[in-house]
């Protein structure tokens, strides 16, 4: 019972549940035919239902991945007319590229700095806004609002917030600790400044998943805890947080993938600078492909990014999921 409730929580699981429905419904009128024919038909039907998404995935995901993998083996810049096969040449180039090493450090810092903070903040916001109160709706709206803004627009606003001298950040900090930091131009502060935008933008969005997750926890458990005289912290530690496990996993995965996809605000706010201190993997790929037109190197970088993302997905859904799911 509790398990099913958990599974229905995040959208990715409910999607799995939906696709099962037609197969069950179709089984009834087929009673007259033989078992094997029925199975064949059911299989065919299954593939038929898969076909649209399979066609879309093949066209826009699998085929591009294959061509990118192929391209990564060629010296292919816009300025050479025919592509020359170089084998692992592009991979060796990026392995020896000092900018790529800096980009990796930046991406790791971005991941480590944004994901835990954003997810923790989302959980806190959800817990605070899960009780019935007059102000809950306006607060939920306010916290979710950044998720509705296009990142490009949000970045333009933050650009002004960070302006030294008369930007909001500097004006208010000056009153407290003294201002004068050029947030986006200081090699130490530029990356944290860009990361803050990411936290601000995503915390409200992940809060929604947690709010949905909280709805699925049976109130009977809380009633039982109250009867037993459990403290608020005990309730959180023993009921709320464990039962939110699948939601936390889902949000962690989404947040990690998001961290690698953050590029818009970097494009607007720092263009990877100063001196590549805010250059992250996806931005470096964009730069290499569409500013420097070195498609072979960009393809190799893309395959690397793909491997990282698949690693995250495999880790989460393979290892962590097994540990998190259990019956109550």
């Amino acid at each position, binding site marked *: 019972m509790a398990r099913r409730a958990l599974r229905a929580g995040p959208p990715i699981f409910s999607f799995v549940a939906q696709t099962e429905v037609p197969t069950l419904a179709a089984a009834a009128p087929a009673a007259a035919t033989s078992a094997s024919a029925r199975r064949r038909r059911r299989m065919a039907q299954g593939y038929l239902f898969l076909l649209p998404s399979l066609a879309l995935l093949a066209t826009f995901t699998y085929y591009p991945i294959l061509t990118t993998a192929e391209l990564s083996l060629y010296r292919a810049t816009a300025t050479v007319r025919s592509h020359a096969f170089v084998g692992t040449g592009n991979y060796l180039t990026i392995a020896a590229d000092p900018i790529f090493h800096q980009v990796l450090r930046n991406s790791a810092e971005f991941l480590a700095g944004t994901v835990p903070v954003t997810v923790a903040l989302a959980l806190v916001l959800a817990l605070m806004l899960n009780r019935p109160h007059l102000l809950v709706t306006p607060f939920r709206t306010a916290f979710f609002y950044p998720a509705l803004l296009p990142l490009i627009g949000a970045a333009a606003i933050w*650009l002004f917030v960070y302006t*030294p001298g008369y930007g909001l950040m500097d004006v208010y900090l000056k009153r407290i600790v003294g201002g004068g930091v050029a947030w986006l131009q200081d090699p130490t502060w530029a990356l944290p400044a860009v990361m803050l935008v990411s936290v601000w933008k995503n915390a409200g969005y992940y809060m929604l998943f947690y709010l949905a997750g909280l709805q699925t926890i049976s109130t009977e458990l809380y009633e039982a805890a109250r009867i037993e005289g459990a403290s608020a912290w005990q309730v959180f530690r023993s009921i709320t947080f464990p039962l939110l496990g699948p939601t936390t996993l889902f949000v962690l995965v989404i947040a990690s993938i998001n961290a690698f996809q953050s590029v818009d605000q970097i494009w607007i706010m720092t263009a990877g*600078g100063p001196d590549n201190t805010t250059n992250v993997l996806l931005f470096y790929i964009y730069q290499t492909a569409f500013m420097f037109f070195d498609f072979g190197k960009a393809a190799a970088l893309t395959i690397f990014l793909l491997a990282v993302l698949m690693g995250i997905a495999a880790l989460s859904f393979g290892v962590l999921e097994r540990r998190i799911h259990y019956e109550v």
Partner: protein
Amino acid sequence: MKRSMQYALLLTALLLAALSGAQGVGAQGAVTIRCYYPIGVSGPLNAVMTGMFNEFNASHPGIHAEPVFAGNYVETMAKAMTAVLGGTPPDLAILDTPELYSLLDRDAIISLDDLVAKSGGKAWLDDYYGALLLNNRSNGRLYSIPWQRSTPIFFYNKDLFRKAGLDPSHAPKNWDELVQDAQKLTIRDSSGQVTQWGVEAPVVDTSPWVFQGFLIEAGANFFDSNLGKWVKFNTPEAVGALQFILDLQTKYKVHPTGPSSAAFWGQVPQDFVQQKVAMIYTSTGNMTFIRTNAKFDWNAGFMPAGKKYGAPTGGGSFYVFSHTPQDHVQAAWTFITWMTSPANAARWSIATGYVPIRKTELSTPAFASYLQQVPQALTATLQLRVAGEQMTIHDVDQVGTMLVTAVQAAQSGRLTTQAALDRAQRDATQLLSKY
């Protein structure tokens, strides 16, 4: 019933997809030419551009020119290059002028010498400002016609000059005067916090544009202007130019510290109209912004001279793409000559703040009356006489980024000026070795 409706929906979707894939067909019998164009400065320029296209089409029944807005310069170049690689180039495009070699290396553009010869040859071309044609040529051949061109100039706040006891009638003439004036114009409060900076120079943004002005003024011969095959970033002159910028920041303390960037580029004109800074370097394209927002007396001047006066040019030019049918080339040329005719070019300059591209443009009635309202608009044109060439080389974007990061590394104290420029030189030489 339900199923048939699903099929109908699917069919409609397929039909729509097929239709949207089909190319638009121009007016009956007219040659349709597609022109990619970027918008590089703020303002309602899309409307001005589309208006000019419409007017051209109305007055040229045999040609249909189709405007394709493609974003900023970087995005437009990316789209044009992708189209070239996909085998469907546009007929013509306005692209950042220094992209010359990136386009040539791909065999993407044609030389315009034959077309110029038919339109009046040297006499016709001589009406364009020579400085604006410097980086439109490679190996003696002309590849683009100037359109939305700019140059960095110097703006100063005359009110603040008066307050500081300086002569507001002219800008500092050279780097020494710049330092002296900036020291008088930098104001600190009792706690030592700067409330007004002397000068702000956004030397690098996404490209090392304004920095090239300092290089030219320092007498640095920093790139191969004939074939675009080499750079010299670490000469004593270049190191001296970078050191001067660092001195403004750390020795004289008249310029905010830290590396210049795209954000700083956007902030500088804001700082100027907010009177947080007394003197700035920025594009002549920002003059309209300053004119409408400054609530004080201001003036424009040349970039103060180092060993000599100098500034790079900037902005976009018309390129005609190769593998374009002959009648399309002719139509594209008709369009370019119409757009850059003195009256039309003047209209564009006034609407945007870009520099006039032709000498006869200045005597058009529209521009003459504009100059009466905004006499400062002439400063950039006068500075063109001493302007140098903007770095136009192979792989210009990547080499430019190397110079940008080097300047930022020096400004943030991560590397010395010499070490930073040595790094840029080493990386650039390695990259350019294949040409």
